[in-house]
């Protein structure tokens, strides 16, 4: 990363909201924007956890290249026991902790993304470093992340439990995004199989994907990590997104 070209900004920057507006929509496939928990709680990031949000600002093009969203959590159990409903659970838990005034001890990131035109330029490692710096500055013990492996969507018929064991010749994860984390010293803990649950009617799924769903059954959805299950009688399609819990130790 060219140190002077990119700069980390936070919601304290007067234009932050304008700069990050639309970024999420741009980087995710439409159906990923319909997670109930995200819908309900997204505003809490700025309402309760503003000092944990950051973006990477491109001074040359005067726009945001990427964004990282995170919050503090209280988790006293072993990291091996982090729950199956990863992403959705963490968001609820963080908001509840904050409401109840519980003292957090870990840091959880729920999104670290780069705009398409800023990908494959070595910016993901510095983004991750900026998130780890937040963990450190708040004195939290670990950074945990329910990761969405970036290439699993090409292998929707392979279980995520198998997928995370796939390695490159250098014995690093085959998945590019998992590799960035392991390279930065993270440990893969385990799969969280129900990290997000996305429900929609048949016509909503048709709109989100451009596909047709004339019968009940299992469908491959472009950029989904697993197939989606459509039930015509109930007029409901359910996609259950698996993620991978990883943990970064903070020195």
């Amino acid at each position, binding site marked *: 990363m060219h140190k002077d070209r990119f700069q980390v900004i936070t919601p304290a920057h007067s234009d932050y909201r304008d700069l990050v507006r639309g970024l999420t929509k741009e980087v995710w496939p439409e159906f990923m924007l319909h997670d109930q928990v995200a819908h309900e709680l997204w505003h809490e990031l700025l309402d309760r956890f503003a000092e944990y949000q950051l973006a990477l600002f491109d001074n040359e093009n005067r726009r945001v290249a990427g964004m990282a969203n995170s919050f503090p959590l209280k988790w006293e159990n072993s990291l091996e026991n982090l729950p199956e409903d990863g992403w959705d659970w963490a968001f609820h838990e963080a908001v509840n902790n904050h409401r109840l005034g519980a003292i957090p001890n870990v840091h959880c990131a729920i999104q670290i993304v780069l705009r398409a035109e800023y990908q494959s330029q070595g910016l993901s490692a510095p983004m991750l470093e900026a998130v780890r710096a937040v963990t450190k500055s708040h004195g939290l013990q670990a950074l945990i992340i329910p990761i969405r492996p970036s290439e699993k969507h*090409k*292998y*929707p*018929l*392979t279980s995520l439990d*198998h997928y995370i064991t*796939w*390695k490159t010749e250098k014995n690093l994860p*085959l998945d590019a995004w998992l590799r960035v984390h392991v390279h930065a010293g993270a440990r893969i803990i385990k799969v969280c199989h129900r990290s997000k649950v996305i429900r929609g009617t048949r016509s909503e799924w048709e709109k989100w994907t451009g*596909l*047709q769903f*004339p*019968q009940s*059954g*299992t*469908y*491959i959805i472009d950029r989904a990590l697993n*197939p989606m299950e459509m039930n015509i009688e109930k007029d409901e399609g359910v996609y259950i997104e698996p993620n991978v819990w990883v943990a970064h130790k903070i020195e």
Partner: protein
Amino acid sequence: MNTSRFQIIKPGDLPDYRNQEGGIADSSWPEFMLHDAIANEYWHELFDRFSEYQFALLDTEANRMAAMGNSLPFHWEADVSELPEGGWDWVFVKAVEDHRNAIKPNIQSAIQIAIHPDYQNQGLSSKMVQAMRAIGASKGFRHLVAPVRPNQKSKYPLISIDDYITWTSEEGLPFDAWLRVHARAGAKIIKPCHEAMIIRGTRAEWEAWTGLKFPQSGQYFIPGALNPMEMNIEKDKGVYVEPNVWMEHRIEE
């Protein structure tokens, strides 16, 4: 379509006919589809034995081939409902064997209609189907059958072909665009042929064809394939079995 712009030509009409055909095939099919063993072994027979059943559509303005049509004659006594599961591979071998054994053909089968990507969605496909039927009519055949590849099935690889062909549009025509082209031209769906093509390759070949990795045995989703592919690491072999749909055009005399 401007009919004067597109002209039907035969293999003898263009010195680089087969070259231009190859260009259309390469740009219309996903790479793995070009590795069917039967196709690779027998393709030349279309020109050696059945030249009058091959044709193309020439864009006279650009002087280039816009679409290609390949078919062949074979002998079939039973009802068309008895046509075999082996579909495309089967009919190709059958036609060549009939010809070798001097068995008189009585029916025509389509092998391919491919439109160059630059010329798609311009109504050329129905013109190609008509031109193919005209060949059968000129030979006095009563049927043109076709093991049709339902193109859009690739978006629904987990739906069985038997279910997929029952999907219809609001007008009651087949949901699939290619099946619909034939249906509009008067063809009827006979039934699926579940093993129309069998494409086998080593793990390294499949990796080269698809850009994917196959670290373990199992089923894989392959972009452009109509069903998942089965990879067996111990045997170093991936097998894709392509289902097609037998359709039947009656040819008026």
